[in-house]
């Protein structure tokens, strides 16, 4: 893969993903006996019908997906299969809520910043657990992070029925975050908040970090071949692994903090409809490229926003879109394989050994669950 490919391929993939998604969805709708036209029209209306819908629907949904997608991408780039973005996001949301409740409303934006920092730290700390288990005891992070997701979910559930429960003690959720502590809106008249801009800036920063900085380079090389990074580069791969894991968790945690301060204004158990899992699809579709992740988060955001509209208007179960998302990822992985074959037959050096899969094509990548 040359540099130009690294930029153009993800863009082509996004286009392809959109076309595939529509094709698969149409087929599914037709088979299930829904009106393809009505359903697709509702999907489109729900995702792109106006600037206001784009902002309040698609981009709003894309925001947590972008935070968690970046979290997953940076971990995968370091050779860490972090499946725990969901749990890291939830604990980030929990810590941010706790902070937002604790600080007086008079703190204003400073209080918001404190809440975001709390989420960042909580997500990073939660990821530090599987990181330590991995480098100390060789525990597979796929397993530990999946398990810790369950722990995080139940911790959140416990807190919203206990110390963080709203004052009337009737609903399993936290009190509402004060108006003054909420994230400012990005566009007036829409629900889109400044968190989206923050996520896009983070994506750009991440691309710069991975490409230009020595730490980012160490992270990439550790992910591509940790033995060579250690032997030829003198890289402390244990340290890099732990730091990358914590960075990944912090991004997901920040995503959770942004969600509670920008969208829900309260913590409750089912805060995330599986953002941390869809994030894996977002990252893979972007081929772990942070800039492309902005595009792929928007694609998935549009699908999810459209799915709600489709359910409302055409009475098509929103779960259908989950099936489509999974199909798109499977087809993209297949297309990567086909692409490799084509590339190897046209390669100028036929003596090159066969490619081994790079981390981006990890076949164990789970498909996103239906939201």
């Amino acid at each position, binding site marked *: 893969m040359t540099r130009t490919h690294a930029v153009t391929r993800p863009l082509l993939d996004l286009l392809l993903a959109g076309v595939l998604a529509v094709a698969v969805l149409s087929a599914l709708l037709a088979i299930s006996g829904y009106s393809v036209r009505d359903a697709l029209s509702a999907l489109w209306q729900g995702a792109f019908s106006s600037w206001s819908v784009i902002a309040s629907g698609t981009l709003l949904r894309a925001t947590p997906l972008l935070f968690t997608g970046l979290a997953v991408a940076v971990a995968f780039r370091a050779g860490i299969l972090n499946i725990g973005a969901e749990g890291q996001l939830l604990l980030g949301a929990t810590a941010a809520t706790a902070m937002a409740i604790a600080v007086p409303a008079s703190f204003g934006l400073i209080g918001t910043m404190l809440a975001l920092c709390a989420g960042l730290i909580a997500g990073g700390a939660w990821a530090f657990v599987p990181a330590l288990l991995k480098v100390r005891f060789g525990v597979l992070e796929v397993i530990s992070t999946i398990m810790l997701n369950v722990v995080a979910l139940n911790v959140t559930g416990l807190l919203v029925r206990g110390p963080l429960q709203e004052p009337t003690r009737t609903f399993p959720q936290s009190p509402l975050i004060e108006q003054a502590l909420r994230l400012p809106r990005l566009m007036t008249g829409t629900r889109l908040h400044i968190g989206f801009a923050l996520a896009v800036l983070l994506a750009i920063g991440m691309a710069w970090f991975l490409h230009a900085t020595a730490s980012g380079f160490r992270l990439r090389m550790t992910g591509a071949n940790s033995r060579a990074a250690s032997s030829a580069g003198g890289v402390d791969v244990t340290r890099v692994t732990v730091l990358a894991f914590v960075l990944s968790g912090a991004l997901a945690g920040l995503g959770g903090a942004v969600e509670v301060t920008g969208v829900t204004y309260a913590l409750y158990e089912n805060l995330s409809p599986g953002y941390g899992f869809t994030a894996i699809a977002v990252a893979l579709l972007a081929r772990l490229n942070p800039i492309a992740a902005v595009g792929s988060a928007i694609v998935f955001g549009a699908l999810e926003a459209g799915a709600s509209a489709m359910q409302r208007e055409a009475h098509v179960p929103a779960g259908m879109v989950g099936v489509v998302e999974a199909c798109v990822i499977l087809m993209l992985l297949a297309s990567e394989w086909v692409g490799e074959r084509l590339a190897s037959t046209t390669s100028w050096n036929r003596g*090159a050994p066969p490619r081994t899969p790079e981390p981006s094509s990890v076949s164990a990548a789970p498909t996103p669950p239906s939201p």
Partner: protein
Amino acid sequence: MVLPPGTNGTVTSGAPRLALHAISRRYGGLQALDGASLNAAAGEVHALVGENGAGKTTLMKIAFGLETPDSGTMTLDGAPLAPRSPRDAMRAGIGMVQQHFALVDAMTVAENVALGGTGTLDLHATATLITRISADAGLPLDPHARVGTLPLSAQQRLEIVKALARNTHTLILDEPTAVLSPDESRDLLTWARRFADDGGTVILIAHKLREILSIADRITVLRRGRTILETRADATTETALAHAMLGLTPLAVRDKDGRRHTSIALRPTNPIITLRGVTATDENGAERLRDATLGVHAGEILGIAAIEGAGQRELLRVMAGRLTPLRGTATLPASIGWVPEDRHRDAVVLDATLLENLALRGAGSRKGLVAWNTLRGQAAAMMRERDVRAPEPNTTMRQLSGGNQQKFVIGRELADDPRALVVENPTRGLDIRATTSVHDALRAARDAGTAVVVYSSDLDEVLALADRIIVVAGGRTYDVPNDRDLVGRAMLDA
């Protein structure tokens, strides 16, 4: 067939149990086997010996169906044999205990034996069978022990019992004593003798000549993929075998004055690399290198000769600053070039660009931003200087041929003018042209005043490159004159 004088190249009479004839196998540019043959009779312990890379394991993998030959024929008790998988070979009565055991650690002994069987699983019957076989054979094993908890010697017994449970009459053991203590080795060889006396055939891949002469009935010697010698064990000597293995001249009956412990030679200048009483362990914590004291000076190529597993791996890594000694001190320069033998695993990142692979050196201590523009210029200059054939620095490492990859690695390791360069099997898998250019690069580094250390499993390569030679044998280091016979004897006489 080149036979040293004083040896007897007799061939057996009657149809042998296992006969391999004119077997050839090529891997890319490497002719691993070049018309090798082997004849093992029933009731015999047959030793298969040769240098590293002589093709011993490949030949046996072919007999066991793990590899297919390019050409050649095989017979078993006179009938044609062409196993396409180990399953075929096992059905025909051939078993093999490989160097890396094929066991499932998490399972019990009985489960491992049952694994690969057919029909219903009756662990109780399997356990009874194991108890009976291990009692008969004198190979104690607890059928209910979990394999991961067993010592290597017991795992090896399990591999043998596994083969015996499948009615194996011809058992191949690939360097079985390498993992055993002297007592355990004796027990194993005693068992092998008994198995053969009962009519079985044991083919023993081995290094230790004294051990082989004490146990084997007959011996086949491979060198560079060819059968050099087939002889009765009682008709040969350690020296004759060593000659056949290494292709030594026949007049090399010399005493041991060629071998003495290494020391730090007195020179007008201090050595660049100094080891004092260095003991080092492998990844499993076993002491591989013991009490090594030596110095490497500027402007010399120190050649290291050793058979596999003698401790050279650890010695090289200590000298390259990649392994911290358990005891003793290693005084090393701040910058050392290191070219490990497993290029794809340890030296390069195949999916990264050449530019990124260049940036890899020193990546651990780099701060701030990576100066890609400066590095791009350096990469282009280095590739020109080292004749690395690639379109541009942004080419992916994977697209380069092995020779160009190795030229790149050597160029990278020498790019910051390190005071020492340590290389391990630098030309493995390369064609003649690439080999020549690697050799030229090493000599040029020496001439420029670098202290160069070269290990190669090909003794001739060490002899051709080295200004001075040390031999590592049994974890000890010895100074040996640059003489093929003396070096060869010192290597084998561990």
